[in-house]
């Protein structure tokens, strides 16, 4: 014979859960959240480590040929970058000399804080990650996060020892951007799409954008530093009847394989 469900106990549990949810919504339990996030961080960090190692082991076997080709391309790019570094050193020296002559103050470089990814958003439609750096490491809400030279996202929430990063591929993510390869430097807004894509929209029709152009942050709004690479233009959509054109962007980052990121902290 089945036991009847204990409805009063169920109601009490649901009522307590409801109270906790309301408390979470209004931020009354923020200290408790920080403690739980801090306690959970080593557990999810260990799980992330196991997951990334296992994932890497499976993927490397199938990607040997691709890796060899990438290796060649990277060697060539490395040589080109070394040359550019050399040219930059000359420009830096010139810049320093001119500053002294004109008595202009030097712009302080941003400080990068390295952080390990310890968890992912537990959904497939929203795109957030958790890192093991927080307010005690100088992290603040709104700071940009980069990896491998490209924009990963922004800091959306900070606790004592962890932070939540809002990824560029999240459908709610928006950032002002410019195409730095065109003389007119057309500007627009980059946002994420479900499925991991990026689109740049609200680009004026009279400002051409070409496939292969590099799109960077424009720095408008003040929170996001200027010049951080977001991606490259993969396709452009124009229409005679539309006011704006749209560009589909590709990024070199694999957002499901992030392990190490850097928060662009203010100096």
């Amino acid at each position, binding site marked *: 014979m089945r036991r009847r469900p204990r409805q009063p106990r169920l109601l009490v549990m649901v009522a307590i859960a409801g109270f906790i949810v309301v408390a979470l919504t209004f931020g009354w339990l923020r200290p408790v959240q920080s403690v739980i996030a801090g306690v959970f961080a080593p557990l999810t960090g260990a799980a992330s480590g196991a997951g990334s190692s*296992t994932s890497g082991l499976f993927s490397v076997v199938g990607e040997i040929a691709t890796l060899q080709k990438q290796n060649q391309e990277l060697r060539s790019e490395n040589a080109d970058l070394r040359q550019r570094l050399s040219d930059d050193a000359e420009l830096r020296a010139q810049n320093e000399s001119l500053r002294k002559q004109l008595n202009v103050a030097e712009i302080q470089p941003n400080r990068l804080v390295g952080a390990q990814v310890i968890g992912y958003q537990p959904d497939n439609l929203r795109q957030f990650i958790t890192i093991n750096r927080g307010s005690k490491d100088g992290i603040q809400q709104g700071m940009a996060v980069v990896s491998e030279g490209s924009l990963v996202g922004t800091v959306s929430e900070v606790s004592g020892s962890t932070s939540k990063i809002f990824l560029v591929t999240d459908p709610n993510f928006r950032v002002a951007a410019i195409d730095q390869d065109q003389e007119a430097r057309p500007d627009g807004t980059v946002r994420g799409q479900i499925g991991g894509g990026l689109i740049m929209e609200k680009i004026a029709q009279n400002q051409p954008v070409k496939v292969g152009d590099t799109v960077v942050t424009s720095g408008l709004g003040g929170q996001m530093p200027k010049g951080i690479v977001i991606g490259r233009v993969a396709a452009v959509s124009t229409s005679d009847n539309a006011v704006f054109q749209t560009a589909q962007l590709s990024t070199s980052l694999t957002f499901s394989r992030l392990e190490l990121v850097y928060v662009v902290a203010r100096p």
Partner: protein
Amino acid sequence: MMTAARLALVVLAVALQVGVFGYIRPLGVMPNLVLIVVILASLLTTATRAVLLAIVGGLLLDIVSGTDPGLRTAFLTLAALAAVAVRQAGVDLDSGSGLASIVALATVTWNLVLLAELSAAGGAIAAGPAAGIILREVVVNVVLAALLRLVLLRFGFGLPGRETTWRRLVS
């Protein structure tokens, strides 16, 4: 099995979902492990325990994710109550097809809730990619639920009398 062991299972499911399955994504999607554990608990244990697991799992997911506080707790609790209600109404859910149906329906419903919330917030939604992600998540969740059900039954997480299901399967 002790309630503490079941609670530990939910905590482990949360850690695995945000940790391991952040990197290992079958068919390119993250399985909803906590949803699967809650539904299995609703089918294999008492209603009280199932709701308790749903609340604990939902609260942990809400805290760990940091977005939409209460959404996961509310959804998982409703999913547990719905599964328990369907079971108590006499529908035989102790079969593979019953479990698959419940898991598939819960997965689709959860993703529709997320899409509605995204749409209300002005997010960019492309129907094709979204449908593809939801379909793949349904397939992965159903397969994982079937495997997990076998494991749980084998190690005695079921109600008294339900352990015989394992014996029926292996005989």
